[in-house]
């Protein structure tokens, strides 16, 4: 992976280094050149100053030499000598200079010319002192010519240095121009480089960040995924873009899931509220006739017709209530996958026929004709006869519920050779269903009838139970309707059981008629006493204890074959009683059966862990009790319903 820091920092460092190096180089070069030029200029200034001073002295010398008479005036010669001495002194200063070869030659000629002048000047003065005016004039003409030559050579010397000064100035101007040019190029170059760098920075860093910021704003505003480009880059921004895209994808996915879950929760809440209302309605309805029946029983003589009818009403309504509670528990078990099937090799035609017969009264009462189309051959499936009957019963009840008086219900059993399934169809000529109802028909608490009077009754769990139970058997169920008022058809498919009937098929040992020694531990006295009465009527020997501690004591005392123990006992719970019994080796053969309103799967688990072998949900029917008292001991708690 490339590092963004390196991508930006390294070129910047190199660029800065190059610029700094170039500036140092230019600065150093310029400094050293400036020093050289300064030295040159200083030398030129000194040379020119001396040349000017010599020229002045020469002018004095010429003036005094020109005004020389024969004989010379007093002090005249001294003036000439003084000028000559001044020139000689100044010349010595120039001798100390380091002169360029050409100007050194000039200076040498000047010195030689000055020597010649001194000699000729001596001749001039000598002639003047000798009053030789002609000789003085001739000598002075030569001296003048020599002086002119010296002046021209000094002019060369001066011109050389002036020209050098000019060249220095020109060089300075050239360098100034070059420096200005460099500066301009440097400024323009730096500007261009800055622009290029800024553009690169904007393209490589700023734009991706701005894109991510915009994408973040869009996500904030809309909640929808907004991927950014650049995830394929090999630097940190690529990593950031990749992570950003992954994050937004996960975020939006999570949002969608949450929204869906929220919707589901809303729907579930709505259905829960609806269900609670329905449950309340359905539970209250049986209570009124029960209460009425009890009121009648309190006021009429026992055994009278009124008392008999009242008991029948109470019995029916209690059955109905128990049926509602069983449905609720079954749905919970199916949902949690905790239902236990008692499978066996059973014949579907016969089971259907018996179940229809069980429900025929309801159909006849409603004026509905039920027609069975049995399969021409026996149809064996591997199933729990009680549960399959429950499935068929629910479908029949459903058909009865939604088929008007005079309608028809057709139940057919067939075999699908291709899928090796037994096929059960329940078709009615009833009210039918809208497609949207069909789609959600098998969901728990789903009811087509949502009117306040709820003329059809029920909790809306029947078809959900059908679906759950069928699927527990490895089968499937589907509903079909051509529309409202055009009837419905439910099809159940169960895998055929083509093997030999084995152990599963054998009927369990029927305990009917066997007298058992039973201990009931129940803190609700009425419940305990009525249960003892029921069991005694069934021919068993029954003892009762009203709390856990006394129940345990009674167990040790009586050593019963079965202990029917409530869970929610005061002082010592049913679980503690069970654990105490199981801890007592002398009580190993005692069958422990939990009898409680705590009938959810977790309760079964806790009961098993405490040592209970079976589990009965309250209220337990006598049939359920007999099936336990007469059957073999289970290795794990099994729930049996009334």
């Amino acid at each position, binding site marked *: 992976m490339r590092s963004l820091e390196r991508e930006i920092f390294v070129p910047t460092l190199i660029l800065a280094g190059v610029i700094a190096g170039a500036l140092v180089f230019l600065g150093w070069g310029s400094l050293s050149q400036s020093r050289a030029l300064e030295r040159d200029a200083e030398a030129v200034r000194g040379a020119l100053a001396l040349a000017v001073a010599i020229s002045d002295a020469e002018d004095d010398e010429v003036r005094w030499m020109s005004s020389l008479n024969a004989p010379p005036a007093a002090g005249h010669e001294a003036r000439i000598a003084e000028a000559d001495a001044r020139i000689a002194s100044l010349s010595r200063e120039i001798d100390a200079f380091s002169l360029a070869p050409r100007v050194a030659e000039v200076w040498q000629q000047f010195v030689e010319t000055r020597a010649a002048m001194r000699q000729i000047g001596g001749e001039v003065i000598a002639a003047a002192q000798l009053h030789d005016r002609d000789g003085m004039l001739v000598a002075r003409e030569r001296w003048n010519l*020599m002086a002119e*030559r010296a002046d021209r050579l000094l*002019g*060369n010397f001066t*011109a050389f240095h002036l020209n050098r000064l000019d060249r220095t100035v020109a060089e300075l101007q050239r360098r100034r121009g070059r420096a200005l040019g460099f500066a301009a190029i440097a400024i323009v170059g730096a500007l261009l480089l800055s622009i290029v760098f800024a553009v690169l920075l904007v393209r490589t860093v700023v734009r991706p960040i701005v894109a991510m910021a915009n994408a973040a704003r869009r996500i904030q505003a809309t909640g929808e995924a907004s991927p950014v480009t650049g995830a394929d880059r090999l630097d940190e921004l690529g990593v950031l873009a990749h992570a950003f895209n992954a994050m937004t994808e996960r975020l939006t996915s999570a949002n969608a899931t949450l929204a869906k879950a929220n919707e589901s929760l809303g729907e579930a809440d709505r259905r829960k509220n609806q269900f609670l209302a329905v449950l309340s309605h359905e539970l209250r309805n049986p209570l009124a006739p029960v209460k009425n029946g009890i009121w009648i029983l309190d006021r009429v003589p026992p055994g009278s017709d009124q008392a008999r009818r009242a008991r029948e009403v109470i019995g029916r309504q209690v059955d109905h209530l128990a049926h509602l509670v069983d449905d609720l528990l079954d749905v919970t078990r199916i949902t949690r996958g905790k239902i236990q099937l008692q499978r066996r090799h059973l014949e579907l035609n016969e089971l259907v026929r018996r179940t229809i017969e069980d429900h025929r009264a309801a159909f006849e009462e409603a004026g509905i004709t039920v027609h069975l189309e049995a399969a021409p051959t026996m149809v064996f499936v591997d199933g729990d006869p009680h549960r399959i009957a429950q499935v068929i019963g629910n479908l029949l009840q459903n058909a009865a519920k939604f088929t008007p008086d005079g309608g028809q219900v057709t139940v057919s059993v067939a075999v699908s050779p291709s899928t090796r399934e037994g096929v059960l169809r329940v078709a009615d000529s009833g009210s039918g269903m809208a497609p949207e109802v069909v789609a959600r028909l098998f969901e728990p608490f789903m009811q087509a009838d949502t009117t306040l009077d709820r003329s059809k009754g029920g909790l809306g769990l029947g078809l959900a139970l059908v679906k759950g139970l069928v699927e527990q058997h490895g089968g499937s169920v589907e509903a079909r309707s051509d529309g409202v008022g055009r009837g419905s058809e439910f099809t159940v498919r169960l895998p055929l059981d083509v093997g030999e009937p084995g152990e599963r098929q054998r009927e369990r040992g029927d305990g009917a008629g066997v007298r058992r020694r039973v201990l009931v531990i129940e803190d609700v006295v009425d419940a305990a006493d009525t249960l003892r009465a029921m069991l005694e009527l069934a021919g068993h020997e029954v003892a009762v204890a009203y709390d856990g501690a006394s129940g345990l004591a009674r167990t040790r005392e009586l050593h019963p074959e079965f202990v029917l123990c409530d869970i929610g006992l005061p002082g010592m719970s049913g679980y503690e009683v069970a654990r105490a019994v199981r801890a007592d080796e002398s009580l190993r053969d005692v069958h422990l059966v939990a009898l409680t309103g705590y009938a959810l799967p977790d309760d079964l688990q806790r009961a098993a862990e405490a040592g209970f072998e079976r589990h009965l949900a309250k209220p337990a029917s006598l049939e359920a009790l007999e099936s336990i008292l007469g059957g073999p001991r289970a290795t794990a708690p099994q729930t049996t319903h009334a």
Partner: protein
Amino acid sequence: VVALAACSERPEARAERLTVATMRTPATGLFFVAEASGCFAAERLEIDERNLELGRDALSLLRENGADAAISFETPTVRAALLDGRIRVLTALHSSTRDTRIIARRERGITGLSALRGTSIGLAQGSNADFVLDLLLRFGRVPRSQVLVVDLPPEQTVAALERGELDAAVLADPYAARAEHILGDRAQVFWTELYTEFSLLLTREDALQTRAGALRKLVRGLACAERIVREHGDEALRRIRTRFPELDEQELRAQLGRVKWGLGIDQVLAGVLRDEAEWLRVTGEAKGATLDVQRLLDRRLLEEIEPEAVMLLPSRRGAP
């Protein structure tokens, strides 16, 4: 194709040709050193040399457009410049105070400058010999009218002096040296430090305009020769010996000892040119013509090639 053709034929690959009129004297030997050392060839300059006896003749050829450049001493140059405003001095080639001199017959009593009065003196009129004679006669306080000046080319002057037809002659090397050699002990030589002789590289203004590149190469070639002379003097002398087969090495070395080769345009040269122009004005030869020395001395090429060789003060307003 055009681009390739343009690339394949570089302008520098073609040598430029330049006609130069020269004079046969060791004093102007810097030109011969340049030619013999390949300095011109290195500049891709092909020289068409017209070698003449006198600088005066070289100047004439230049003025007649027979040459692009010429080499001459300063006196003919001043004369020509007074007549022809196109003449330009590109650089001096040498300077000397002892090259041009008077060689007199001592046996005729000429032992001092004043003894020249009444003698016959041969020289090439219009040359610097004329100016030197005037100067020395002035120092000898001999009016020019009191000598007989015989106008002869140097070669004939030497012969006339040898035959005794002349008492004296004003000559420059190699003729002066030959005359001294012929007279031997009978020769009396006069010269003065107060005269500086210059040989000059000349051109015309129009040639400077049209042949500037070739003239630049010419000056660069001479600068190359100057460097060779400074660094390898003996080698330079050896290279020009073939130019003067009549001189043995010692004689050539002696003659060259009297001159100082070197490029330059300076105050001394400008002063000499002004002095000679004034002399011509005084003698009536100039006839009212004035010499613009600053214009005559075209410093541009030399300043470009050897800037330190230019030692010319800025012209004063109104100065000639």
